[in-house]
């Protein structure tokens, strides 16, 4: 039955806003444990090293590391230091934020397949590290020249590192 038939008078949006000033402002704060694997990874970044784990069964290398292989479901306890250089697997440029506000500068992010010393490029499976890419033009991205480009980590100065993913400012293109 409609509220009008009941003889009521619904509040207009304006009237409702006068009564309810604020409906939702979540105050949700957390302090999350990095865990065993991420702790090693972030401590490595502070020292200028990129650390992963690898699965002896399927050959997958995890950067950042995991202590288990999601595919084989076995415990991973083999650590590997990978190079801070690699190849771009894929990259995109963002022009607007997710709220559809135009960015001052387009941001390029990509997935980078890092080199692993002692292993050739095809002898391991590598899901890739997600990070910002710098030194590339928008045309490099649009034309897909960025694919397979060689990139190298641009590290923050040691005294400014905090042990988080931003200890690497970006991966800089060194050869397209």
């Amino acid at each position, binding site marked *: 039955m409609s509220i009008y038939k009941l003889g009521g008078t619904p509040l207009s949006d304006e009237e409702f806003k006068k009564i309810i000033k604020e409906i939702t402002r979540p105050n*949700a704060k957390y302090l999350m444990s990095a865990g*065993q694997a991420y702790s090693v990874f972030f401590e490595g970044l502070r020292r200028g090293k990129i650390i992963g784990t690898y699965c002896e069964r399927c050959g997958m290398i995890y950067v950042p590391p995991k202590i288990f292989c999601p595919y084989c*479901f076995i415990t991973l306890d083999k650590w590997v230091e990978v190079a801070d250089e690699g190849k771009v697997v894929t990259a995109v440029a963002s022009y607007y934020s997710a709220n559809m506000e135009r960015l001052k500068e387009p941001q390029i992010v990509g997935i980078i397949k890092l080199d692993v010393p002692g292993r050739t490029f095809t002898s391991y499976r590598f899901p890739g590290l997600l990070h910002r890419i710098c030194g590339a033009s928008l045309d490099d991205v649009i034309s897909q020249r960025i694919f397979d480009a060689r990139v190298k980590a641009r590290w923050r100065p040691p005294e400014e590192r905090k042990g988080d993913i931003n200890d690497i400012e970006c991966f800089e293109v060194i050869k397209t």
Partner: protein
Amino acid sequence: MSQPVVLGIGYSGFQPSTSHYNIREMIYEAAAKAYEDAGGIDPGSDVDAFVSCQEDFWEGISINDEFVPDQLGAVLKPVYTISGDSLQCVLSAYSMIRSGAFDIVVVESHGKPSEILTMRDIILMSYDPIYIRPLNPENVFVFNALEAKAFMEYNKIDREALGRYVISSLRKGLRGRRNPYASIKNVEAYLEEEYVVEPLTKLDFAPYSDAAVVVVIASEDVAKKFSDEYIKISGVWSVSGTSSIVYDDLREDTMTKIAARKVFDMTGIKDPVREIGVFEIDERISHVPLMVIKALRLSEDVNRDLMMGRFDEEGDLPVNPFGGALSEGNVLEAHGLARLVNAYEILKGSLGSRRYSDVEKILIHSRRWPSSRTTTLAILSR
């Protein structure tokens, strides 16, 4: 139709804080133990589907479903998530097995409240945003206290009897395996405690614990291929109430009453007092088990029976004989599985003395915390 059974269980945590592990590493540890307990199953080749019970606001991650598969070995498999207590996941797994479409289903749940810095505000987010939240209750458990007070008043249960329940449960917890808060106290000390929100003191609320629990549920025919040491899920049912206690009858626990009628019908139980050997009941707030005892018709006079010790370890109706949530801590949505783990271990004979060796059936109960009255009951049997 296929008979669902619990083939294996695994857990990690049940500690006030597990800062050395992140939640995914905890779940991995629990899953690895559960698969081993289940006779060494391989999640990749043996498990048909996975069901996870969790709530985004406890996680700090929206659409947390995406983070379920890795640590369970569930990558490239069907994975379902339910925003609810973990016994609701057991009901899903039970139904999936009974349908005949699934042979083995893994149920997972976890809670890591030690990582939540603004628990009061997150609990407040669970209340009606337009009507209740603007009232900004200083203590978000005021609704639970209102229920406790009404129930105790209508059923003539005094605070000494409630204290007797709390003290007894904390002592029973000393015999359990996962109980960091178990302790010896006396009723006098309970009665001297300051009210947090009347009629409840801090001893009436389970403190928080971190835990992850994984349970392997299988059809009996398939379970036999891996192990002959399994426990049957004879029945399970869930009932939800309205969104607010103001619409409920506070004199009784209607949800438990209806769910019990259904599971007793499913399992052929005529007289729960005689046929059920142990009751594993949600006691995250101390008056709730008393409501459940009443709703299950285990007692005509709960106050008298509490004072007589009928629900104590040596009583004829043992409730949480190895400690409940008051001793193990509140593990959020994983609570229902924590009750199931106790029941599984008692029925397998790995927890408890000869006193429990002839127990054939255990009832487990969980009610979604903190403000929901959604209730799930299950009967486990040898």
